[in-house]
């Protein structure tokens, strides 16, 4: 990991010094354990602020698309690179203005799971290969990182960036999964009432802060449907129907585009696994169209392209 950070800093510094990009978007160390913060660097000296660890759980493609017209470089994990691809395909980023510093991803850790394991507030967090050394005021534990990976990372089959200008480390081995959607299968196996109950409980503590939406690189609409006021589509309060309408529609807007990067869950202050919504649609995109989002800039996503091979009957 250290050599990877070193390379990120060198490459970023180089790009800025040569004036090849105006800004480099990456992660900086946070102010508390297990926190990192997206940062934009514009001088070679500041490139020393860049870091990378298993706590860089947000998706930087979300920041890249907001730098329109500028030449930028972005530090990209596998999933970030897939969202950069999606942005290019959806004309949100010009490939010529984008330099991708690819990071073969070791997987990100689940902060809620670690906090639950430790009981108290985390006061220290270090990584040594696959070992996480986590402290609280009264306790210190060595945890096996593989047991504390985020759920999306434990099922990830695209750890290596799919599109990049430079890689800062050796490619990592991609895992082969017999079943990529065991969680969706489990929900599908429930009765209709059981599924309804599952989703009702899932969102029962949602505070509508919209962190899930705002952390998502796919959510770039100038005005989100929940923020429309003329006409207003959704109630703004805590009525369950309105809360659920937001979640359902947000998920559908991501159909065939979501890379399961997990930024939504990472950002949620309440620890709600909103991926339970998007994962089902990812599975449908896979089953119906053989589609995984963000793997190539040469194909249109299934829901914005006409194909005579469309599996739906109405087309035939």
């Amino acid at each position, binding site marked *: 990991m250290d050599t990877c950070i070193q390379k990120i800093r060198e490459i970023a510094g180089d790009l800025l010094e040569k004036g090849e990009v105006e800004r480099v978007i990456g992660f900086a160390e946070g102010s508390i354990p297990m926190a990192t913060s997206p940062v934009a660097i514009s001088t070679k000296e500041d490139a020393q602020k860049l870091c990378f660890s298993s706590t860089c759980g947000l998706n930087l493609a979300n920041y890249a698309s907001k730098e329109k017209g500028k030449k930028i470089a972005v530090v990209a994990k596998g999933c970030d690179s897939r969202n950069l691809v999606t942005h290019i395909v959806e004309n949100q980023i010009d490939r010529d203005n984008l330099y991708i510093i690819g990071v073969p991803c070791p997987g990100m850790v689940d902060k809620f799971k670690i906090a639950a394991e430790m009981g108290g507030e985390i006061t220290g967090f270090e990584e040594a290969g696959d070992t996480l050394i986590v402290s609280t005021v009264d306790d210190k534990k060595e945890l096996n990182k593989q047991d504390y990976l985020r759920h999306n990372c434990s099922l990830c089959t695209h750890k290596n960036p799919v599109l990049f200008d430079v890689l800062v480390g050796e490619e990592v081995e991609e895992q082969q999964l017999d079943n990529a959607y065991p969680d969706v299968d489990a929900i599908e196996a429930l009765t209709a009432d059981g599924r309804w109950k599952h989703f009702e409980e899932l969102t029962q*503590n949602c505070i509508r*802060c919209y962190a899930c939406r705002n952390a998502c690189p796919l959510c770039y609409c100038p005005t989100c449907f929940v923020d429309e006021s003329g006409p207003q589509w959704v109630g703004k309060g805590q009525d369950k129907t309105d809360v659920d309408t937001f979640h359902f529609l947000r998920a559908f807007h991501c159909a065939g585009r979501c890379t399961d990067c997990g930024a939504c869950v990472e950002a949620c202050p309440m620890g709600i696994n909103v991926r339970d919504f998007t994962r089902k649609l990812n599975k449908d995109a896979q089953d119906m169209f053989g589609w995984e989002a963000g793997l190539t800039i040469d194909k249109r996503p299934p829901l914005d392209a006409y194909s005579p091979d469309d599996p739906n009957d109405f087309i035939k």
Partner: protein
Amino acid sequence: MKFITIDKKDWAKGIDKSRGTYQLFGPVTDINGCQIKALDADVQPEMEYTDSVLSAKSVLFPQSEKILVTSLNEADDDHHIMKRADGDYTPRAVIGIRPYDARAIQLVKMNFDTEDYRDPYWCDAYEATTFVGLAINKPGPLDFSTSTGTGPFSEDGLDILLADMDDKFLAKVLTPKGEAYAAACGFNTEADAKESQVLFDVMRKDAEKTISSSVETDKLKDKTILDLYEAPFWDDVAFSCINCGTCTYVCPTCWCFDIQDENKLKASSRFRNWDTCMSPLFTRHATGHNPRGEKTMRVRQRFMHKLKYFLDKYDSGIMCVGCGRCVKSCPVNIDIRQVCETMNNYEKKE
């Protein structure tokens, strides 16, 4: 003011006894962590909790509250005339509220209960509420409450302050409201006031000593608003912000709300919902113009309000009680302690 001791074996029974006359709120944990909520009849407040994700502000200021109602049926004499919605303002008690959250309610009170205006919903709820605080013996690493005018044993805004003494609670009864609540629970074993105060002082000092986090605010008052407003650091502070409402919703002192009307058939209700200055909608005019159209403006507003406008207006310190919730929950780790330091140390270059 008196002290009473409550054997933990008698605690649950006493709490249950008070349910006859009080509606109870307190910390409960579910799959999304610990929150301060209305307690169902069979649920006890969790007195071992470290902190709640959201503060106790919702006890008086629910995220969504129906405030006015009217009929849209023109056959009714009083159609389209808004009337106050029914609210339950019978006695309620919030058990185990943290001292910094009680202090926060006092800060919020400065806004909802002024000489010129009295927010009836908030004030009626406030008057109906007894605040039974739980002192923090072991403050967490993000607690910086001692530098914001409160602290782990602060009594400000509380009717009773409980200190956890392993097998018992030592309770300092601070107000007549507190006395009434203790009586409703049947807690009446009086303890020696002098000795108990000494114990409290020792525990307070021990707790305060373990607080390692702090903010300095001493120079904020003498800065001009425009110097801070025009300072060059706001773009950097705001870069990582995703403009979600997390910081404002978890904050015990954020009081802003939005008004919404909802109609169902011939009945109309007016609600107020928590609003957040992080959202572009917060300031968007009907014309479409938005005076805070850029992210940086919104981030600046949050910190200027908390750390400068409030301080200037009320002369009661900053509008932050040092609970650390926003630091912990911010998805991108924007840390109010760092922003406060940047503002406090900022000197305009001529």
